[in-house]
């Protein structure tokens, strides 16, 4: 049950980071950072690492 809750939290943070990536208009650095933050979240959701 706790594990499922953590997967939901992971998905939520991933969506937030993705949404910020789409909304970001100016800073290339921020764009890159959003993507970097998303890597471990996506790997966990895909059950890779």
């Amino acid at each position, binding site marked *: 049950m*706790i*594990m499922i809750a*953590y997967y939901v939290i992971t998905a939520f943070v991933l969506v937030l980071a993705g949404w910020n*990536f*789409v909304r970001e*208009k100016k800073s*290339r650095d921020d*764009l*890159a950072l959003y*993507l970097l933050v*998303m*890597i471990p979240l*996506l*790997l*966990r959701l*895909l*059950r*890779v*690492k």
Partner: protein
Amino acid sequence: MKDDGMKREVLLKAVLAGAFLGLVLWGGLPLFRHRHSDVPIIKGPGVTAVLRLSDFSPGLKGTEGDTYVFVLQGKEPGGKALIIGNTHSNEPEGMLTALVFIENAVVDKGTVYIIPFFNNSGSRNTRPGDGYPLYFDVPTDWGSRRFRYGNRDASPLDQWPDPDVYIHYPDRQLLSFIDVRNTNRTWPGRPNGPLMERVTFGAMELMRRDKIDVAVDIHGAETMFPVTNCIVAPERSVKIATLASLTVKAREGFENHVEPSPAGFRGLSHREIGDHSATLPFLLEAPIPFLDQPTGPKTTKFLLDGKDPFLLSLSKKKKLFVPYDESGWSLEKRVGQNLSVTLEIFRQFSKKTANRPIVLRGVPRYADVVKNGVGRYLGDPAKAAAGGVVMN
């Protein structure tokens, strides 16, 4: 102008997103393949049954915590022993010792149970931050056998999240958070606890139900760690451990001293098995230089030959707990001494408990493995009989 700006933004985001997906695939695919690759185990001439640990701990069914239990039953009755390998999946000498038993041993009296991948989840995990290789190959007479190189702890994909502090069951001792995934801290376990507690509970149930006399949990330990190159034994097992230690030194010429199992440190196999069952526990530690921190690159060659210039320098400064020279601590030495010590424990137990002997043959000893290599005792899965290979 505005359209051009929009186009540039979309193009930039597409390029970055492509690079992101490339990184995910580049980094993730090898890990995915490692987690889902299986290792062949040949059922040797002495294997009479293959069970699952979930037969003893139903909470493991359908999880990566479940694992195979090989049974080698002798024609004559006798005592019962359990051999556990890969409690820590980054200490492969335990798993390889178990495989040499499975693929070669024939039991004449008694029964031997063998769990080669005790922490199956850990064997599908890795530690990229420490530069761990994902696989290693053991050379054989016919080619080589490839094995997954795992991690000390179970994969967080199978047991997540970790608590801030692991409260050991049933003693409530506070342990490090990471130990909730360490199958040498979760003994004796419980049927509905975290996954690794269900794993140790399965082994405890096997020992209690099938009345196992002797359990040998095989590990490796750093050369800079004081509890290395030894047999760890609680009070009840210490006599047999001492006799085994003295005998291998006298007859086979290698050191393997006895360390007492501390009564106040909970969750370890050599403590909890003895406290929660009638089984006599022993934990074997062979020195594995690969696990030491101040070494050169963590290559598969280093994992196999145990040779490292930094450890050699430290040895000259007397900073190691084992003798260490240019010959290193090879896999052959580590597996060889595990085999000899395990056989000697069985022999000493059989001498002490004549009505429950554990007698087996076909297993090489220290000198054989050092001379011929571990691979000499590992078969070719391609040449095994139909149904004679178990994929783990």
